[in-house]
C-alpha cells in the first residue's frame, strides 16, 4: 500500500529540555529523540507509549504548542517552522486537540458554550449569531442538548465532558485532530459511546487523527498504522495488524504481553 500523500509528516523530530538535575548540574533531557512518521489523509495514526515515553511532547509539537529543538513537522506540505504568524494562526484552524481530561481543559469560570464558540470569534470566521448556531449544531451532533450551552464544565459527567471537548475541537472544521488519551478517564460503558462517536465523525468530516495512548486495544480498534515510542525513541512503526500481532522489537512485544484481556485462555483461570 503506497503511503504517498501524508497530511502530517514528522521528520527527525527532536526535543531536548534543559534541566537542572539533583546534583544541581545543568543537563539535558531528551524527551523526543529524532523520530519520523507520516499520517496519511483520512486515517488514524496511533502513537503508543507509556508515561514518560515522549508521546505527549510529540503531540504538542505537532500542534505547534512546543517548538522542536530540531527536525520538522509538515502539514499539507508546509513546514510549521517556516510559517509566519498569520499562517500559524491559520494553521490552528485546521488542527485541533481533544484532551484526556476535558474537565480541566475547559475554563471553570466560563460557560462551555462561550468556550466552544470562542475559536470562531478568534479566527473571525463567523458572526456571533452564526457561531452560536454552529456550536448548537455541534452540541446536538455529539449528543448534547442546547440547554447545555450556558452551563459550566463541572456540571457535567466525564462522558459529557469529553463530548464537549470533541465539540470544541471540531468547531473550526479542522482537517486534523490530535487525541490525547481521549477515553482514559472514562468508564467502560461511556468509552464505547465516545469511540463510536469519534469514528462516525471521522467518516462524516473526513478527519485525519493522531491518537496518543498507552492502550493497545484502543490502537487496534481505531488505527490503521501506529508507532511505538519508548524513552523518546520510535522503536517500531507500521501497520497495526502487523505491529500488534507480530511485533518486531522486544519493547513492543513487552507492551503486547502486558495487555490483559477478559477472554480466558485455556492456560489461565
Amino acid at each position: 500500500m503506497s503511503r504517498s500523500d501524508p497530511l502530517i509528516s514528522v521528520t527527525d523530530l527532536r526535543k531536548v529540555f534543559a534541566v537542572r538535575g539533583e546534583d544541581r548540574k545543568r543537563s539535558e533531557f531528551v524527551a523526543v529523540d529524532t523520530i519520523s512518521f507520516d499520517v496519511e489523509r483520512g486515517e488514524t495514526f496511533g502513537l503508543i507509549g507509556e508515561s514518560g515515553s515522549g508521546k505527549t511532547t510529540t503531540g504538542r509539537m505537532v500542534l505547534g504548542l512546543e517548538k522542536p529543538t530540531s527536525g520538522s513537522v509538515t502539514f499539507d506540505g508546509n513546514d510549521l517552522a517556516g510559517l509566519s504568524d498569520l499562517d500559524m494562526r491559520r494553521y490552528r484552524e485546521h488542527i485541533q486537540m481533544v484532551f484526556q481530561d476535558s474537565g480541566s481543559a475547559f475554563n471553570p469560570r466560563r460557560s462551555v458554550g462561550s468556550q466552544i464558540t470562542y475559536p470562531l470569534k478568534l479566527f473571525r470566521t463567523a458572526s456571533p449569531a452564526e457561531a452560536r448556531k454552529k456550536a448548537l449544531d455541534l452540541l446536538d451532533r455529539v449528543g448534547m442538548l442546547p440547554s447545555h450551552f450556558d452551563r459550566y464544565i463541572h456540571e457535567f459527567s466525564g462522558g459529557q465532558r469529553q463530548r464537549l471537548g470533541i465539540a470544541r475541537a471540531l468547531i473550526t472544521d479542522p482537517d486534523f485532530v490530535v487525541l490525547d488519551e481521549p477515553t482514559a478517564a472514562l468508564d467502560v460503558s461511556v468509552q464505547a459511546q465516545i469511540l463510536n462517536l469519534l469514528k462516525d465523525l471521522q467518516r462524516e468530516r473526513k478527519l485525519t487523527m493522531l491518537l496518543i495512548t498507552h492502550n493497545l486495544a484502543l490502537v487496534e480498534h481505531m488505527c490503521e498504522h501506529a508507532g511505538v515510542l519508548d524513552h523518546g525513541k520510535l522503536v517500531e512503526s507500521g501497520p497495526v495488524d502487523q505491529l500488534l500481532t507480530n511485533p518486531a522489537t522486544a519493547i513492543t512485544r513487552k507492551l503486547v504481553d502486558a495487555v490483559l484481556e477478559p477472554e480466558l485462555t485455556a492456560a489461565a483461570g
Partner: protein
Amino acid sequence: MNAVTGAVGAGRSLFKVRRYPAGGPMPTEVAAPKPQWRLAARAFGKDRMAVVSLVVLLLVALAAIFAPLLTPYSPIAGDPVDRLAGVGTEGHLLGLDGQGRDIWTRLLYGGRNSLTVAVVPVLVVFPLALMIGLFAGFKRSRAGEVLMRVLDVLFAFPLVLLAIALSAVLGAGLGNVMLAIGITLIPYMARVAYTATVQESSKDYVEAARAYGANPLLLMFRELMPNVVVQLLVYATTLCGLMIVVASGLSFLGVGVIPPTPDWGIMTADGKNVLLEGIYHVATIPGLLILVVSLAFNLIGDGIRDALDPRKQTS
C-alpha cells in the same frame, strides 16, 4: 484521589445522574441555567457563620454611616464632669471615656474611620496587585522576576513595622495612614496574585486556549484573570480583617488618626491609661469591636472561598 474522596465522589456522581427519583415527574422543559453569581450566593448562604458575619458587618457599617441618626452626642467634645462613667450610666449606654465623651458615639463615628482605613487600601491595591501578579506570573519573564524580587524586599519588613515607619515619614492623619497601609499591602497581594497566576497557567484550559491560537494578552485576561481574581478576592477579604487590627494598632501607637478624631484604635489607647485604675470599659469595648469585625471579615472570606469553588455549586 484517595479512596474516601473517590467514594464520596462516586456517591456524588451517582446523584448527578439520577437527579429525579424513579417514577417521579419528568418536567417537559429544562429549567434555565442560573447565572454563576446566584449559585455562588446560594452556596454562601449555606455557610451560617459567613452569613451571620456578613449581617454583623453590614450592621456595623450602616451604624457608622448613619451615626448622626443614632446618637445625639458629639464624638469629639465631652463633658469632663462625668468622665469615666461606667456602662449603663443614664443617657450613655456604654459609658464615657476619659474626656467625658460618649463611648457609643465615638464607636459609631470611629467606625467610619476604622472601616475606611481597613477597606479602602485593600480595594485600591487590589487591581494593582492583580496586574502585577498576572504579568509577572504568566510570562515568567526576567522583568517579572525582578519585580517580584523587589517586592520580596518589602516582605522582609514586618508589616506593622513598615506601616509605622511610613506613617512616621508621611505624618499622621487618615490619608497618610491609608497610604502607608496600602504600600505595605502591595507585596502581599501581588504575591498571592502571582502564585495564583502561576498555578492556573499550568492548567489544561490555558493550554487548550493556546491551542486555538489565543495570544498571551487574551490568555491572561480572558482565561486566567477570572480564576486569579477569585483567589485574590478571598485573600483580600481576610486581609481587611487584619487591616482593622493593623490600623487600630497604628492609631494606638499614635501614628494613625490625629486626635480628637475618633477611631477604635485611639479609643483603645485612651482606655489603656485607665486600665490600671480598674476602669475597663473604655479600652475593652472598642477592643471587642475590633475583634468582632476582624473575625467577621475572616469568616466572610472563608464563606466566599467555599462559595466560589465551582464544585460546590449545584443548581
